[in-house]
């Protein structure tokens, strides 16, 4: 034990009398003079969401310039529309973040979401079950899907990439067999199970339209932020992602924890499934074909490290919004669809390059 003597004890020994003239400051790191880049690097390291927030603000400003979009971008209505358009990928990105924070990856989120939505629709519309039963069954599928992923990862010790690559195909094939690739129509949902579409309803604030789905997305992020930052469960998620063996040695039951993370991700996927019915209006087994990759894109642009254990859950929310703003802005600027894809490709590479640069600060 190394308690710092503060000169309060009197030992009576002569050679300690010089202590009174010594430095009484508490041990501290040397504050070396930093250059501008160093300071930026340091600030970014402490605030991982700062980069996505700045990119978001900058892109909104650029697309708002009259010569870029002729004022069509910066309207309350369009901004609220962008929020609606990213809401589903945003919620999926929250689920994806949980897995990525544990240094895993989930390729099956999109397929599981549609699987869950299809089950809600088939039971609620085609079988005529009450909406709440349909919802429960949909959530059972979503959480069950997460559980299956988690069991293969923790019990059979397969890498998450492989497990979810497999379940991606499996979920897709099951949902196509269930539906015969046929959509469940919006009009049939209205007639049989309108409650499933609740997240498509909206409240108007001026000309802005805030759908319940958008509010839900923000709630999901708020709750997960609280869980990850203020509960033991959340700190364990970070601990496992940072160093699984150290977490194990520190007494965390890592396999059991991982299982709960995968089930939690499944629950969030179920929420996305419900929200997607409101957003799209109908239930299409062919929609959201790239949702798994889009969710990973939002997570990466949001500054969560693919190596696990680092990044804020709020990052992917901004990541999803950045993608939405770019898509809307480039389209309103009259550019070909391919330029959106091109821009998002660069955003991903840029985001990870910045992440690598920031990581060096702690080295």
């Amino acid at each position, binding site marked *: 034990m190394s308690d710092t003597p503060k000169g309060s004890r009197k030992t009576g020994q002569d050679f300690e009398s010089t202590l009174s003239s010594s430095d009484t400051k508490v041990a501290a790191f040397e504050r070396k003079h930093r250059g501008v880049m160093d300071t930026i690097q340091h600030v970014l390291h402490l605030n991982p969401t700062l980069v996505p927030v700045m990119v978001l603000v900058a892109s909104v400003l650029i697309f708002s310039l009259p010569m870029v979009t002729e004022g069509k971008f910066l309207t309350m209505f369009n901004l609220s529309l962008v929020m609606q358009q990213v809401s589903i990928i945003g919620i999926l990105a929250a689920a994806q973040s949980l897995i990525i924070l544990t240094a895993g990856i989930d390729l099956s989120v999109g397929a599981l979401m549609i699987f869950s939505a299809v089950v809600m629709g088939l039971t609620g519309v085609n079988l005529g079950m009450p909406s709440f039963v349909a919802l429960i069954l949909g959530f059972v599928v979503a959480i069950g899907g997460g559980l299956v992923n988690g069991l293969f990862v923790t019990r059979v010790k397969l890498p998450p990439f492989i497990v979810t690559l497999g379940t991606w195909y499996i979920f897709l094939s099951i949902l196509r067999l269930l539906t015969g690739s046929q959509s469940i129509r919006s009009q049939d949902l209205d007639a049989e199970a309108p409650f499933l579409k609740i997240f498509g309803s909206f409240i108007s604030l001026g000309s802005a339209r805030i759908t319940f789905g958008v509010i839900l997305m923000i709630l999901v992020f708020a709750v997960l932020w609280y869980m990850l930052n203020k509960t033991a469960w959340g700190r364990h998620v970070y601990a496992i992602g940072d160093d699984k063996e150290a977490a194990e040695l520190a007494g965390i039951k890592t396999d059991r924890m991982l299982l709960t993370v995968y089930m939690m991700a499944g629950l969030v996927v179920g929420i996305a499934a419900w929200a997607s019915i409101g957003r799209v209006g109908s239930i299409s087994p062919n929609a959201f074909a790239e949702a798994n990759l889009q969710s990973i894109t939002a997570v990466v642009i949001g500054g969560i490290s693919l190596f696990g254990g680092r990044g804020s859950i709020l990052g992917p929310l901004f990541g999803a919004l950045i993608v939405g703003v770019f898509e809307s802005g480039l*389209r*309103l600027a009259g550019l070909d669809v391919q330029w959106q894809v091109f821009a998002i490709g660069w955003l991903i590479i840029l985001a990870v390059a910045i992440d690598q640069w920031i990581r060096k600060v702690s080295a």
Partner: protein
Amino acid sequence: MPRLSGAGPPADCTHFWEETNVTNTFTKAALLGMTAAGLVGMAGGAQAASHSISACLITKTDTNPFFVKMKEGAEAKAEELGIELNSYAGKIDGDVETQIAAVESCIAAGAKGILITPSDGPSLTPIITQAREAGALVIALDTPFEPADVADATFATDNFKAGELIGEWAAASLENPEEAKIAMLDLNASEVSVDYLRNNGFLQGFGIDIKDPTDIGDEDDPRIVGNDVTNGNEEGGRTAMENLMQVDSSINVVYTINEPAAAGAYEALRSFGMEDQALIVSVDGGCPGVQNVKEGVIGATSMQFPLLMASLGVEAIAKFAEDGTKPENSEGLDFTNTGVELVTDNPVDGIPSITSDEALEKCWG
């Protein structure tokens, strides 16, 4: 697969069997059991052929209702003519490897004819040429090869004509087509043939100069508000429509690549409270799409006939096996047109159409 046989502890995962926890072992056994059951299920598909004439049907997928209907038509006709039909399908649209493997199997089995909806024409061309050299009659269904004469014949919808019909109908239904504001909801960024044929067919039918007939979006008519892609589903249709409404909110004509995209576009308009402002037209003739015509969601759609494509194909193979004659193309086309019919409950003079009730009798899926 030593792990599945349960014959003994494989060297690479001994820790796996050393666990003593009963629940854990049970979970593992259950997981492995599920996997094993899945594999056994997959192995059940193989069958042997014994009829004198054998033929193959290779579709893009076997879940899309369009191809399900096609398979029904082929099977019924094969049964009638005493032909042994083997069906294959890719896993997803674009899964060309599985289709190539299927053609190889058909050649090996000595098939007299192959009916195929090519997922990717250029990639399939070499193996199709091999099949023809081996003496099989190859017929492309629904999707032509490029060029079409890679196959012996093509039985398909005239997609340009399908587009033209809904274009003419839209122009005739508007009070003032000169003032139209048109949204074009296309398939995807690859601009495949079905995409540009329907898109440009519609524009020509509407009376717009299409410039390059194989290019989408090169038109400069001010009535076109813009093009966006939908991936042929509701989600894409809705987002694309929302985007084009941001460009110009007075859109009153919406062309869509297929009926799911049309349903999505309608949802977008409905969320804006503008569903009565625009005419939506589409192509396909799937039953949910026809139902949407009946309910006024879609103004008109061009119906195609997958069942007919397949049954005509099987007949052609039977004839070829009998006396070696090959099918001939429709006049003025490089394929055999299996027909397209306009479905609408608001018919206009001079454009033949059927009602949604009549169409519900013929729809696929």
